[in-house]
């Protein structure tokens, strides 16, 4: 009785997904069945071709991201070591409550908390409203030392259209707070233009770089990131 090897088994064999007895069975059959051997070679060649072909894809340079959610600071090793030694010295020479105060203040950076990046990528009215509320809240709470960048991409860029119903509120915020900056993603705008969608951006909106580049830049500078 001849054994029929199904296609999926041949692919699984090439991918090394069969058990040892199944592998052995296929290998024994290949010794006598030329068409099976040819088929296995073709699948292997295709698999290698797929891998090699995507290895040649031109990869854009890596832009490191920094997570500032927890500390707001990216500390160099030397600073961490100095902090550690300082705290240990303090622990043995000064009383406990002072040390605790020192530690808690050093792990709560003040400057980073004064810079916020709000990122909106949706035109969902609820999200738009939430983003505007959040912006206003931060600006009111933070006072003049606060800096807020509002970045939109994808559908979010619609918020900055002159015909958007939120225009009045947005312009009100811009008039009240000179520490608010608006950005629209260059790539999102270019893509929208490619679909013949015309945007009339508010003149105060900057649009000289892709949103994600701007996000990465701010994160590297120690800004707090808020995704709406």
């Amino acid at each position, binding site marked *: 009785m001849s054994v029929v090897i199904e296609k999926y088994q041949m692919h699984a064999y090439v991918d090394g997904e069969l058990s040892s007895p199944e592998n052995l069975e296929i290998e024994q059959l290949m010794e006598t069945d030329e068409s099976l051997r040819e088929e296995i070679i073709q699948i292997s060649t295709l698999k290698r071709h797929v891998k090699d072909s995507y290895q040649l*894809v031109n990869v854009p340079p890596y832009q490191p991201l920094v997570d500032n959610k927890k500390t707001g600071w990216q500390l160099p090793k030397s600073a961490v070591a100095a902090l550690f030694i300082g705290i240990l010295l303090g622990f043995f020479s000064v009383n406990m409550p002072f040390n605790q105060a020192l530690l808690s203040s050093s792990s709560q950076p003040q400057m980073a908390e004064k810079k916020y990046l709000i990122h909106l990528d949706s035109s969902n009215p609820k999200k738009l409203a939430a983003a505007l509320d959040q912006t206003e809240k931060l600006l009111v709470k933070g006072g003049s030392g606060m800096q807020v960048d509002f970045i939109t991409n994808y559908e979010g860029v619609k918020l900055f259209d002159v015909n958007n119903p939120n225009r009045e509120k947005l312009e009100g915020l811009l008039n009240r707070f000179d520490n608010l900056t608006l950005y629209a993603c260059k790539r999102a705008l270019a893509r929208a233009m490619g679909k013949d969608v015309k945007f009339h951006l508010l003149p105060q909106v900057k649009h000289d770089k892709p949103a994600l580049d701007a996000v990465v830049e701010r994160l590297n500078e120690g800004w707090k990131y808020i995704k709406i």
Partner: protein
Amino acid sequence: MTITRKVVKFLCSVQQRERFNIALETHYARLYRLAFAWTHQSCLAQDLVQETMLKALENQGDLDNFDQFGAWLSKIMHNKFVDNLRYNRRWEWADEAEVDDCLSEACTESKLIQSQTEDALHNAMSKLSFEHRQAISLSDIQGFSYQEISDITSTPIGTVMSRISRGREKLRFLLDKSYSEQRKVVPLRGR
């Protein structure tokens, strides 16, 4: 003791973050190639990778084992891609076939790249359904096992096996077709 513990904890978290950033950088090129295999558009692939990496940073606490970093990132990217297409309609998901047509339509940037390279394999890959393309790319480009692909895509292992087998068969068919068209010789005029 409390302070020492806090300091040790703090140092560990700094070390962990450094390790995480290094792992991100190490996996970046592979992740981009995978994103490119899924989207076949440089601009979309860049967006997808950046979003994946941001999401990974947000959820770095969820990573249990650094040995699984590649699979973990691929799963995040899979979820991002599916969410963007299906739910946010960011890339205008209609149905599977339409999306694949849409994805194979190049943006200006990739049209230029495509006109320069004319890679038959990439063209053929872009004509596969997303599920087939994804299964093949996870297996052949990333080298994941069927079990890992099943975990990443939240699909039964039998379905993964079937997608890889059918996808490759369709890919072979498309490539054969493309090569036979290329072999057609245009006759010289004015003999």
